[in-house]
């Protein structure tokens, strides 16, 4: 037993003397987390897992019409505009949307489209010349063109939604009037121009009187709230940076496993493994010492990364006992993963390439749920793919704990990780024993 510790400590000494190994175990995960947090802006906010990007917009207002006496329709208090185009422009440039779009003006629609093509803007909003005229007319329709960069998805979609809602407000008053006029005509056998004007006047008086009309105050009719799930003990959502740190930690912990176990191949190539075999040290002891080194190294790495996450990024990992038990399962799985992978390699050179590749693939697969965090309703198979890897179970478990789940909720994760560990270790150790028997 003591020799197992001797071998493990020797291996750990070698590991922690390597600057490259230290960098990869601690430096890179922390750096990557910091980098991704920079990527997603306000990623440490607990109520903002995703920050919408600001889209550059070019606005072309071709509207020639004039409201005439209805200049204050729909305009924010204290403002007056002479056309629908002017009104839309004012609304889009208001404070409400400064976090979403930045507007530049152009006169020529072709030039605006060309600017979008040249990626000077994400999209161009082109208001037609007959916008106000259509509003003032009894019938007819007008289309606002939104010309967008096809490489962008989120920003243009949101702005399309905003513009659509604004246009809906205008459509609402027009439809309301049309229905009133049609119904009046139907029930009274017709309607003349004077009656129409009277109805129009009546309509807008009524609209002005009803300041809390539904279309102006949707909150009175639509209550939006976040889900309160049993799986969460509080409604606090996990911040983006916490998820990123989780992903990076798991990824690099599962890299350390094979990387540390690789020392077996290194020693074989250098002759020190054979030298170990000619000492009065059983093969089992030698291999056990190497496995123990992997286990202890990962344990140290895990502890340092979780602590760093807590101290630097203020990440609340969850209930301490649950975290410890889950991390123990992850440590065992990662160590056994290393034993398993390296048992298939014949040389250090082969191991280098395959290790890097296989760990990258399984790590990325396990992290898939994190990659699609900002994506609406990702396909279910993403989670399935992720759970085909031990990394996926580890990420899922830590996410649950950060969400406030209890130990009972992550017991399946711990159990599955232990099963992974047993299976990997069993196959790996048999292969090593056969190789070195």
């Amino acid at each position, binding site marked *: 037993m*003591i*020799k197992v510790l*001797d*071998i493990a400590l*020797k291996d750990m*000494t*070698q590991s922690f*003397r*390597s600057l490259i190994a230290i960098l990869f175990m601690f430096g890179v995960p922390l750096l990557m987390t910091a980098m991704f947090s920079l990527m997603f802006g306000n990623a440490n906010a607990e109520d903002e897992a995703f920050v919408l990007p600001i889209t550059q917009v070019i606005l072309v207002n071709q509207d020639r019409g004039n409201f005439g006496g209805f200049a204050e329709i729909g305009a924010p208090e204290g403002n007056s505009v002479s056309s629908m185009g002017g009104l839309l422009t004012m609304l889009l440039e208001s404070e409400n949307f400064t976090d979403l779009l930045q507007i530049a003006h152009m006169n020529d629609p072709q030039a605006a489209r060309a600017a979008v093509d040249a990626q000077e803007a994400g999209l161009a909003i082109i208001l037609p010349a007959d916008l106000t005229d259509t509003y003032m007319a009894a019938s007819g329709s007008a289309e606002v063109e939104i010309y967008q960069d096809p490489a962008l998805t989120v920003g243009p979609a949101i702005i399309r939604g905003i513009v659509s809602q604004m246009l809906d407000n205008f459509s609402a008053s027009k439809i309301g009037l049309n229905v009133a006029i049609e119904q009046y005509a139907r029930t009274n056998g017709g309607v003349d121009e004077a009656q129409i004007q009277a109805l129009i006047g009546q309509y807008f008086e009524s609209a002005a009187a009803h300041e809390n009309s539904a279309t102006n105050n949707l909150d009175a009719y639509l209550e939006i709230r976040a889900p309160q799930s049993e799986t969460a003990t509080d409604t606090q959502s996990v911040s983006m940076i916490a998820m990123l740190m989780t992903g990076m930690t798991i990824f690099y912990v599962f890299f350390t496993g094979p990387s540390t176990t690789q020392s077996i191949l290194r020693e074989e190539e*250098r*002759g*020190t493994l*054979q*030298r*170990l*075999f*000619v*000492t*009065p*040290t*059983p093969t089992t002891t030698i291999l056990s010492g190497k496995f123990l080194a992997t286990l202890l190294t990962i344990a140290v790495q895990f502890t340092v990364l979780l602590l760093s996450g807590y101290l630097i990024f203020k990440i609340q990992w969850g209930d301490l006992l649950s975290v410890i038990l889950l991390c123990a399962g992850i440590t065992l799985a990662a160590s056994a993963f290393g034993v398993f992978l390296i048992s298939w390699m014949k040389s250090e050179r082969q191991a280098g390439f395959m290790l890097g590749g296989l760990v990258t693939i399984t790590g990325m697969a396990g992290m898939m749920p994190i990659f699609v965090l900002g994506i609406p309703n990702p396909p279910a198979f993403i989670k399935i793919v992720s759970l085909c890897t031990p990394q996926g179970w580890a990420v899922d478990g830590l996410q649950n704990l950060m969400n406030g789940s209890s130990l009972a909720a992550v017991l399946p994760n711990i159990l599955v990780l232990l099963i992974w560990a047993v299976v990997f270790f069993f196959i790996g150790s048999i292969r090593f024993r056969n190789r070195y*028997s």
Partner: protein
Amino acid sequence: MTKSIAIHTHDLHKDFGEVYAVKGVELEIQRGEVFSLLGPNGAGKSTTISMISGLLKPTRGDATILGNSITKNPQAAKALIGVVPQEIALYGDLTARENLLFWGKMYGLRGTALKQRVDEILEIIGLTDRQKSRVEKFSGGMKRRLNIGIALLHKPDIVIMDEPTVGIDPQSRRNILESVLELNRLGMTVLYTTHYMEEAQELSDHIAIMDHGEIIASGTHDELVRIVGELDRIELSINAEAARVMDAWQRIPGVENIAPENGQLHLLVDDSNTVLPLLFETAAKANVRITSVEVQEPNLETMFLHLTGRALRD
């Protein structure tokens, strides 16, 4: 098995499938002697050593170390031997002291005893001043000394050295040969493998000659040389293709064997004084000029040539 026998191998075989490397090797090495296993590259020496030291499992047969079977009681057997591998087998990213401490632990040494022994070994191999330097920074000679030092940590009864002088400079080689003799003077049994005849001749009390996986001769130097009797060995250089004279020389009475090697011709003859003039005469008739002649007393090289028809360094 008496305790005067340090190593005994019985019917040792190793079949790798594609290569049958060792075929029934029987060795008996007495305590306190230097025993050389001599043979050309690929003879099976390293494979035999690997089986004796417990690194390889024999296909058949067994080896005992002071009565302890390497197959049935490997840990006890390994505790009695120190192995100096052919390649430098050290941890480059650890210091000399750290290497010794670790290997000492692997040999069962602990605590103060270990530390004292490490100090002693550092003194013996002359690396006390550099004990805290990482091995990767050592010169080749220093690494070799440390490589040997590790094998001596646990004061083994037997030291096995696998071709320790391959590819090193003459000075270092000299130092290693001296250290082997010193170890023997201290009472250690040394099993030494080499393909250099002169090393075997200089160091050994007993020599076993191995070729193609088999021991083809074994004994003291004098016993082995006597195998070739009174045959003289003549080494000749000529200024033409060997084929021009070989047939003719083969027919000369007294010529036992001719083997070309590295541009020279090695001949075994009954009496060099009688045969030499006839060699010159035959060469002259074939318009071949002999450019150098060396006559040697019977030795291991002669013996090997006699037994195998090849020079030892073929």
